């Protein structure tokens, strides 16, 4: 029972903490972010298993986490609002060429991130070649270029 409670608590805590940290926090992983993720993983592992390193305990923890993921996936399908709460919604950052700075400030995204996404995904050279820039639920930035006439 203790293992199940530990796994459930850690699952919900991580869900909450990554929701608080915002969309962009882990979508663009730098070397330091990767190291940070490994440290978080290590801390989580110790809290999950406690001092019980048995295979049975590991199996219980893994099963609980997978079951919770399955249950939340089902619930998100049943209630789209829950899906929005847990996964957020896409957000337009450049609307038909118009830069929406207020939204970018809230999401802590600068123009460099948008032009970088434009370069990487479409080979665009300038900001005025972008028609739409959308911050997706995953935290990635998708770019829709202007049609060249």
């Amino acid at each position, binding site marked *: 029972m203790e293992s199940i409670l530990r796994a459930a608590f850690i699952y919900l805590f991580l869900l909450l903490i990554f929701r608080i940290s915002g969309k962009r926090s882990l979508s663009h992983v730098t070397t330091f972010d990767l190291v940070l993720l490994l440290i978080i993983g290590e801390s989580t592992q110790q809290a999950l298993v406690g*001092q019980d390193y048995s295979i049975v305990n590991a199996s219980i923890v893994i099963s609980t986490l997978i079951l919770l993921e399955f249950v939340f996936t089902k619930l998100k399908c049943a209630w789209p609002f829950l899906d929005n709460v847990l996964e957020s*919604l896409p957000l337009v950052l450049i609307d038909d060429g118009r830069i929406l700075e207020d939204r970018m400030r809230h999401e802590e995204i600068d123009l460099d991130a948008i032009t970088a996404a434009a370069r990487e995904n479409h080979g665009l050279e300038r900001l005025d070649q972008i028609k739409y820039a959308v911050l997706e639920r995953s935290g990635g930035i998708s770019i829709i270029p202007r049609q060249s006439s």
Partner: protein
Amino acid sequence: MPTSKGDLQLQQDLKFQNQEWLFQRIGRIVLTFFVVAAALGLFGSGPLSRARVDAPTAEDNPGAASVEYERFLRISVPTRLSLRFSQFRAPEKETVIEFNREYYDSVFIRQISPQPSRVTIDQKSARFYYAARAELPADRVLIFVLVPRKFGSLPLRIRADQLSTSLRLFQFVYF
């Protein structure tokens, strides 16, 4: 449900987005308080957690007694409880320290320094006996290293033959 934004079809809800930003702002403030509270010892090991209880001693043996302990503990993490007497009642006689049974059952006693000559347990209490002067430390401090086994509130009542009243304290064990 996909909605259109000009010729772009996507699900965007600015009202929801504003609520999300508000939630994130509040969440980050709560997170900051959480870390500050942890640093101060609200979850164990810090100035807010360290505590001391003093008790008067019996009339026939003046002097103070005190317990130094941690208010906030974590399950399975060892903690130290120091019981300090200004003087022992009669070092040539047996000295008895008594813990309430509920507390005794809620912790695992990893170490007692110095070791008592014997321990007895009944339905209400656990008693630690120190038979002779040689068994008692010169600085009159008994140290218990305890490992909490249950989470929640943990009331401790300590009685000793030189105390006029029992020492009462509360600890809280986090899961």
